[in-house]
């Protein structure tokens, strides 16, 4: 039998007929929906390159079965930018050189978006480092990544209070 599910992907409602109930969310996104932003790094939930948001929470898409996501709201890196403008986290990753080879970047960015939304880390570099440690970066761009998260967090907090965002600085 063909499992059918309804899912919102990057703000758009999708009717999905799964050819195989064992398909992971990552394979659904990459192989069936043409959304290749999330990457397959280790395929066992240990590198974080496949991080996407399900109902606002970050998940390893490679370990998440698609069939369990009926009615879920999925956000991938492709859905972050609004109306042609980059998301503040994306802008901050550019401003702080938060990548080298770029392969882990979509996962880092989705993880950062959720970390900021979770509100647990605030602007404490130590907690941001800890909160971003599920996303491996082999190039060692950790400084840029942590600075980008700090900067975006401040900008978004600033925006939320109707103020201008602060300029980023190398705080970490």
């Amino acid at each position, binding site marked *: 039998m063909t499992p059918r599910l309804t899912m919102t992907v990057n703000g758009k409602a999708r009717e999905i007929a799964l050819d195989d109930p064992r398909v992971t969310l990552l394979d659904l996104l990459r192989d069936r929906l043409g959304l290749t932003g999330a990457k397959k790094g280790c395929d066992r939930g240990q590198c974080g390159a496949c991080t996407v948001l399900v109902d606002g929470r970050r998940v390893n898409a490679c370990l998440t079965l698609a069939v369990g996501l009926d009615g879920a709201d999925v956000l991938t890196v492709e859905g972050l930018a609004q109306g042609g403008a980059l998301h503040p986290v994306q802008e901050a990753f550019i401003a702080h*050189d938060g990548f080298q080879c770029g392969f882990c970047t979509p996962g880092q960015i989705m993880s950062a978006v959720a970390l900021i939304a979770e509100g647990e880390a605030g602007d404490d570099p130590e907690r941001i480092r800890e909160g971003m440690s599920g996303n491996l970066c*082999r190039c060692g761009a950790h400084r840029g990544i942590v600075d980008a998260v700090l900067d975006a967090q401040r900008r978004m907090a600033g925006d939320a209070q109707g103020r201008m965002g602060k300029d980023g600085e190398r705080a970490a």
Partner: protein
Amino acid sequence: MNRHAPPAGSPAPRLKPPEGDTADRHESAWLHVSGRAEYIDDLPEPEGCLHACLGLSERAHARIAALDLAAVLAAPGVAGVLTARDVPCVNDISPTHRHDEPVFAEDRVLFHGQPIFAVVAATRAQARAAARLARADYEALPHAVDIEAAEAMGLPLVTPPLTLSQGDAAAGLAAAPRRLSGEMRIGGQDHFYLEGHIALAIPQDDGIVIHSSTQHPSEVQHMVAAALGLPANAVTVLVRRMGGAFGGKETQSNLFAVVAALAALRWGRAVKLRPDRDDDMISTGKRHDFRVRYEVGFDDDGRILAVDAGFAARCGFSSDLSGPVTDRALFHADNAYFYPAARLVSQPQMTHTVSNTAFRGFGGPQGVVGAERIIEEIAYATGRDPLEVRKLNFYGEGRDVTPYHQRVEDNILPRLVAELEASSDYGARRAAVLAFNRDSRIVRRGIALTPVKFGISFTATWYNQAGALVHVYQDGSVQANHGGTEMGQGLHTKVRGVVAEVFGLSPERVRVTATATDKVPNTSATAASSGADLNGMAALAAATTIRDRLRAFLAESRGVGAESVRFEGGMVLAGDVAEPFAQVVKAAYMARVQLSASGYYRTPKVHWDREKGRGRPFYYYAYGAAASEVSVDTLTGEHVVDRVDILHDAGKSLNPEIDLGQVEGGFVQGMGWLTSEELWWDEAGRLRTHAPSTYKIPLASDRPRVFNVALADWSECREMTIKRSKAVGEPPLMLAASVLEALSMAVASLADYRECPRLDAPATPERLLMAAERLRGR
């Protein structure tokens, strides 16, 4: 799968790169952050694309008595299998042409994980499931997993060893007032590029196009052509970018590209081969682990008089690049120090393990870490601060000849180290660490300042050449192509900057396109930190040729002196007239001026006679130094890196942002190598650390708490490099030797610094604990 179909009903939003100052920005920055930067696994698969999976040996050394693939062939979706018999021409991918590395093992397997066959199926899952159904009958043969076992078994060296000698080391040792000897183990390292190996081969007419995640497209082209019996001109290899490589894609990509190409021609369909992470880690080579045995003679101040050292490397079953890697270990066995007499010998030892390969530093790091151990030994033997022993032994006036007889002409270490010593407040902090350790029972601290001197150039002298191709289009946009590959090191960004400056354009007007063997042929691997040095110069030559044609055209048509024509800010200034670049280009096109040019560069001055062990293998040296401070819990062996200060030499940096990233990233990668990353083979020769669950690379939380990184902005390359910059890819990795030595100092405090702890690498908590226990017993 319907990968070739666009996402139904949702055209991708037309994002534009952000406006503004993009001069120093990564050329693909906005693509990366928006998830649109394409890696090979992101490319739409051609209709009917098949997928291959490798079948790997389950023994470390055995004769294959029988191989039954019937169940594999009968599995769902399977198109067929490939074995050694199916390689039409040469079943070999040895990069140094020693004919010791088959694509598929024939009657004998030489390591656990060696490819024996490939299965090709409609989907990747089907191929992987089918590969598990093979039945091989092995007749076990004796195997040797490590250097000692290989020596005991009398296994040969995989390639001829090298000896470097200067003066009479034996006499120097005999005459030295003091001497000591010891042994050091230095572990290997898995590359753990986040993007694993991958090749997508697509038949095209009677040839083939291969998208390969490789640092060396020309070698992939050569290997595929040789295996398939095609002329090189029928094989095109493309790589836009890699998701990390670090040396692991210099030769190791050959296997995957050759198998994908074999299958593509056999079935006349596109074939993709992307091993899963475990297979990637099990079946591809890593950084060599070394055993260093050293004897050093010195005086009472700690001045080195003679060194005799042997560098044995676990090379695995074949030579791969082990010859040049172990050579480079010897080239760096002096690190920054003058050895008046030296005898250095390499031992590229065969073992029944995966064939080790290039990894950032290419043997150099093992040489450097060995040299620093010798310094550390002398410091503990003489009771001096290791930094004082270092300074005493730096190259200098009248003490400037290396063991390979190259003169060190550009030594900036005395100034660089002095500046770092001051900026890091080394002296006061060392005193504070010593004071802390006097009063602290469990937690002990350590601090160390270590230098790096790294030779820049391929020691295979013919590799020191590069080509580029630059096109200017009628709208004034520019396309640049060169032989180097982009793996995250920022090469394309640097080359884009070089070309843009020639035309006085902002960098976003220049696009660097995928490395392609049909655009720039006969390229060298993007390796040895040489990418920008070589390809930047070639691109500069190509762009300058076009600019000079534009100058000559304006000189003739406007009656101005060619030399007075300037290219600035997107404008061309000729006499009193300033015109937009695009307008000049259009006019030049109408006047039939050629707007495309190739460029070529070869490094001058370098030469190397391996038989004699003499020459000038390096065009110049890059330098750096790091001061690291750590805390160790001596009851658990756990440690924290509290603070790191780095001053690094990138010459007149082509792009300081990128270079700082390389320095930080290289340091962190080196720190992983020397502390947390441990490769573990069991007695049967199986790699047991083949996934991130068991193989631990540094995390964001492992980054030093305080991390001050600076470039020595006063440095300028003495040689005529691209804008007097220096190569920066590999040298910073060795700055992490300071972490290892700082950990060692923390442990040494347990025996009041009377004894060198001889801490081997990686300094995992277990190893730190063992060293602590050993010293406590004294």
